């Protein structure tokens, strides 16, 4: 193991999540990126193991190669470095909808055991909600059309719920086979990456099941943080801690945002 491959000893749970998300992206693949952690993870991947990763932002930039973290999904650095900049209609109709994009990254306020996501309203009813969230954006069609979906969210009973207040984006609906019945072309959520570990769909039921723990986390911690009775695989794996190299590149990336402020 070289120096750059040796694992770091001190890192935050967010850094572990970002590194885990970055590792899920394959070199040469394409990734539909939202701002925040997904963008950080995708840019980290492009600077480490996946230099040929194609970054697609919903602002219409295909193949962006930003030299710093973009401040928004429509940052000028994305247009300046993209292979092509296309209209909003084209990015959704020609590039996302036909299932050309390998991985879509989503977050949300609530997720349920089948990877359905709520980013619309919390509490009350739709017309008179307790909390009004931003809404759908590109998420419903990203969830429907990308070959696979990665969800990144901090684990907590408020976020990982038994019952969504609103279904904004569909994961596996009410279980295995629902995507096919709905005619959704993409494969659905392959991973939920949390600070405590990684959930993956059970091959038989599509229910999200804990398969991998973050270094230092336990299955019991995860059970407490997840709002439904969490299934855990026998002998869950443990994620490799961020390498020194991953952490260095990640922190350099994050510093570019601070500089731009």
């Amino acid at each position, binding site marked *: 193991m070289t120096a750059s491959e040796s694992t770091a000893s001190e890192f935050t749970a967010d850094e572990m999540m970002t590194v885990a998300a970055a590792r899920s992206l394959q070199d040469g693949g394409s990734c539909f990126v939202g*701002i*925040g952690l997904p963008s950080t993870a995708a840019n980290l991947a492009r600077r480490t193991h996946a230099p040929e990763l194609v970054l697609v932002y*919903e*602002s*219409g*930039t295909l193949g962006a190669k930003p030299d710093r973290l973009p*401040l*928004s*999904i*429509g*940052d*000028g650095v*994305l*247009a*300046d470095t993209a292979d092509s*900049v296309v*209209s*909003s*209609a084209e990015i*959704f*109709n020609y590039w*996302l*909808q036909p299932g050309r994009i390998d991985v879509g990254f989503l977050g949300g306020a609530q997720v349920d055991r089948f990877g359905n996501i709520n980013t*619309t309203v919390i509490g009350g009813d*739709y*017309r*008179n*909600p*307790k*909390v*009004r*969230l*931003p*809404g*759908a*954006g*590109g*998420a*419903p*069609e990203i969830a*429907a*059309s990308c070959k696979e979906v990665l969800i990144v969210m901090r684990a907590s009973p408020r976020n990982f719920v038994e019952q969504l207040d*609103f*279904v*904004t*984006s*569909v994961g596996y*609906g009410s279980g295995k086979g*629902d995507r096919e019945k*709905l*005619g*959704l*072309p993409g494969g659905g959520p392959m991973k939920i990456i949390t600070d405590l570990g990684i959930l993956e769909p059970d091959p038989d039921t599509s229910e999200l099941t804990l398969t991998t723990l973050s270094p230092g986390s336990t299955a019991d911690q995860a059970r407490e943080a997840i709002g439904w009775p969490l299934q855990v695989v026998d002998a869950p794996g443990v994620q490799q801690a961020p390498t020194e190299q991953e952490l260095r590149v990640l922190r350099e990336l994050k510093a570019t945002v601070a500089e*731009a*402020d």
Partner: protein
Amino acid sequence: MARILRLREAVEELVRDGDTVALEGFTHLIPVAAGHEIIRQRRRDLTLVRMTPDIIYDQMIGAGCARKLVFSWGGNPGVGSLHRFRDAIQHSWPVPLEIEEHSHAGMANRYVAGASGLPFAVLRGYKGTDLPAQTSTIKMIECPFTGEELAAVPAVNPDVGIIHAQQADRQGNVQMWGITGVQKETVLASSRSLVTVEEVVDELTPRPGAVVLPKWAVSAVAEVPGGSHPSYAQGYYDRDNAYYQQWDPIGRDRETFEEWLQTEVYGAERSA
């Protein structure tokens, strides 16, 4: 045929109470100055349309210009919530706000249908979500060839479409570049249109990635340097990220917001 007007004249002439108005711009080239002018002219009962209502729509909603919002993502990008938008929806302040909610793909296609002179557009979207139950402008339609069921959304055809661009020439031909979102469709879908520009130039120099709107497709052009601040105008100025962050505490409190409105909008008529 585009006429070159002052911003105040253009808004006076083109935007009327009760109109459906789209101020578009996807993160880039947001027509903020035009939105402030609409607030200043105290337009009321507007139906505001935009894929990504952000600070400028928060301000217009807080100022009481809007009775309805048609949108797909409402937030302060990179910062958090829009508090005036939430206050209007959750507490009807200062006036009730009706909403019509879509996804980005749905909204983009509604503009495309509007620009195309078609009554509706078809997309793979919304299936399995709770949106169709809440939004009457989402229906299902069957492919007449395969029998497959797809989503249909009606065209959006604003009374007025407003965008910001980098340049126009003296005849009113408009050129914008960088991320251009649904701006072309917004102008083409609208009965009347206003393009604010960073500068009016003698001649437009063709640029890679530029979108050109010929003068005969635009109603009015107004020269408003800095007209998309705090968003950015590629080639002219960068995003004022601090403004987005500073908006959060201002928008959070009704009184602070009203003070801001007095000082920064009503008391700050632009010379343009």
